[in-house]
């Protein structure tokens, strides 16, 4: 269950099967976009143990970067997406470098403060961002002869980017770098004593996470044709964290499940009952109390029971998410 190739095969399976189970191309696309962002969040939370409320900043900046570029310049789509990643990455390095100077609760508070700061920057500079109205009229440029107008052609494009991002993140997570991040999460002091520059590693994790989240934000703006203020709101960070935790921290495919579950359940419940947020709240309480390893943990347990053995080694690991050891 822990083989990277197996997880990648599952990601491919999701990308291929989603259109068969969801009639709406836009909802299916949104699932993959948020899966990318949640995987980026997971790298920080699940692998490095950093509970960051800054993810919304990178997501929002990705949206604005893409929007501003496509509205005001004639830059082709792919360089614009790369630019959104660069902006997400650079800002993540700055925020990461400042935030990791403190640990635990103070780290979380610093990222929250940055989230508020960037939200109000976007709100205040409404001439650039559109403020509360959002940045409207973002064109969906095609790639060469490939038009991305229809929802399913755009889905295909996003699916390819999703799989590339997933593979890249997985490569990072299984590399020495990724293993070191896990070591930092489980015992930062020991990792430092062995000689790892944990500050640099944490900033690097921020950089990767920022780039990936910026990319997701850019794709989101491209999907809906606007960069709304809510993309940079701290509620966005909250949603991304919730998706990551629902899916299961410390496992990248868990984030895909988390994003799919969150978005599809929200969409279904909101059509049934206007007070659906109550149900979602109750569901989160159940998850936090009884299913701390998220959906992925549940699947591992289920499969373990079916096959008569325990889940992977990560299922046995203590849940230290958000609790950096001193």
């Amino acid at each position: 269950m822990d083989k990277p190739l197996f997880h990648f095969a599952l990601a491919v399976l999701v990308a291929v099967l989603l259109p068969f189970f969801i009639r709406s191309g836009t909802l299916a696309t949104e699932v993959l976009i948020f899966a990318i962002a949640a995987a980026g969040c997971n790298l920080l939370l699940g692998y490095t143990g950093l509970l960051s409320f800054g993810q919304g900043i990178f997501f929002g900046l990705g949206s604005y970067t893409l929007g501003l570029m496509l509205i005001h310049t004639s830059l082709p789509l792919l360089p614009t997406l790369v630019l959104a990643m660069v902006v997400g990455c650079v800002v993540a390095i700055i925020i990461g470098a400042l935030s990791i100077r403190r640990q635990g609760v103070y780290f979380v508070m610093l990222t929250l403060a940055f989230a508020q700061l960037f939200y109000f920057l976007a709100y205040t500079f409404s001439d650039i961002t559109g403020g509360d109205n959002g940045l409207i009229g973002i064109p969906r440029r095609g790639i060469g002869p490939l038009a991305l107008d229809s929802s399913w052609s755009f889905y295909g494009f996003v699916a390819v980017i999703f799989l590339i991002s997933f593979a890249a993140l997985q490569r990072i997570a299984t590399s020495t770098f990724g293993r070191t991040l896990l070591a930092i999460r489980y015992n930062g002091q020991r990792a430092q004593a062995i000689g790892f520059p944990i500050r640099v590693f944490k900033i690097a994790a921020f950089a990767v996470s920022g780039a990936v989240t910026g990319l997701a934000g850019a794709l989101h703006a491209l999907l809906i044709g606007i960069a709304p203020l809510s993309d940079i709101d701290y509620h966005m960070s909250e949603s991304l964290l919730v998706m990551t935790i629902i899916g299961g921290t410390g496992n990248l495919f868990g984030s895909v499940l988390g994003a799919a579950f969150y978005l599809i359940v929200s969409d279904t419940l909101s059509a049934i009952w206007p007070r659906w947020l109550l149900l979602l709240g109750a569901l989160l309480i159940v998850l936090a109390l009884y299913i701390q390893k998220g959906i992925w943990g549940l699947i591992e347990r289920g499969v373990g029971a079916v096959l008569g053995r325990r889940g992977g080694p990560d299922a046995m690991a203590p849940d230290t998410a958000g609790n950096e050891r001193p």
Partner: protein
Amino acid sequence: MHRRRFLQLSSIASAALAAPPILRTAFAADDAITIAAPLPMSGAFAANGKYGSMGTSMAVADAGSVLGKKLSYLEIDTEGRPATAVRKIQEAMQQKKVQLFAGGILSSSALAMGAEVNKHQGVFFTTAGADEITGSNCNKSTFRWSVPTYGAINETVRPLIEKMPKAKRWYTITPKYVFGEGLLNAAKDVFKEKGVELVGNSYHSLDEKEFSGYITNAVAAQPDVLLILNFGSQSSATLRQAVNFGLKSKMTILVAWASGLEQFEELGADVSDGIYFGAQYWHGIDSPFNKELVAKVQKEKGINPNYSFAGAYIMAKLLSDGAKKGGSADGSAVIKALEGMEYDGMTGKETIRAADHQVIKNYYLLKGKAKAAMKDKDDYADIISSGQSFLSPEDAKCKMT
């Protein structure tokens, strides 16, 4: 990895994704014309969404059928979020082939939805407030029934100045964003023209809930009139706190952009008594169409129509009338039919201006009455004056796209 384990796992993974389509609403039937109402049915503005949905569904039921096809109604929950709103509009247009939309109470969602509907040449009718909707962001598909900030100020501040020529000192409380600035700038223009002094202004953020500091500042400036330029729950909170501070006896208070009956119910007659309010709609309007609507809603729903209800009703009616007149429910035909249309609406004669798709209609100045003077439970206010004030499409900066 063993093939069996792979299959087991993949079936579990996909099972989670399999359930929703079963629960999804059915596709709109081909032989029906659908009017969709994208409204905030959940979230902070769910109450407005509820009345909007009632209004739309009643208008659709009243119209029955158009062009020999049954008129059907599709409710879309925007959750009050632009991103969700746009996504669901895309779904409705691409998968359910819906072309006609009436809704979008919040400006940010409405602007985003208008742009999206325009991409696919549908029609989007809204009551949202932002000037940009029929101003700098106007487009071929978007129509707006409500009066923008310019008219709201000119039909409230101007008549009040004329009514009280001695009231020369005004103080404003303004939410710091585009909509608030729009109201404030329009007010400043009227003040300048009428020789009225703006003795002070307090800006606040959209998240503000506590207004006593601003009210103390207002008292210190000793104005004759306090002009409240925020809206919704913020204006209710501002007003309630102002009344608690005893401002009613010290100065005249005007809330330029009230939400109508909903807001009076929330405030209660003790607070609203003696206060002036600007409103897009009031159930007491003396017009044949309005009287008919009020009687009907009272009979069928047991309530008086409020602004969310009435706005939604007239927008859905205009869309079905547009389809009838245009001879097709196709977006471009309906747009053409609606442009320049004149009709007897709830506020009397209303016209849809072709150049910017703004409906030219009355805006009302109301005055809250005392509890003892109320004839029934909803008789919170009297209409003091009404009129039509609009910027020209050029001055509103509308360049139709």
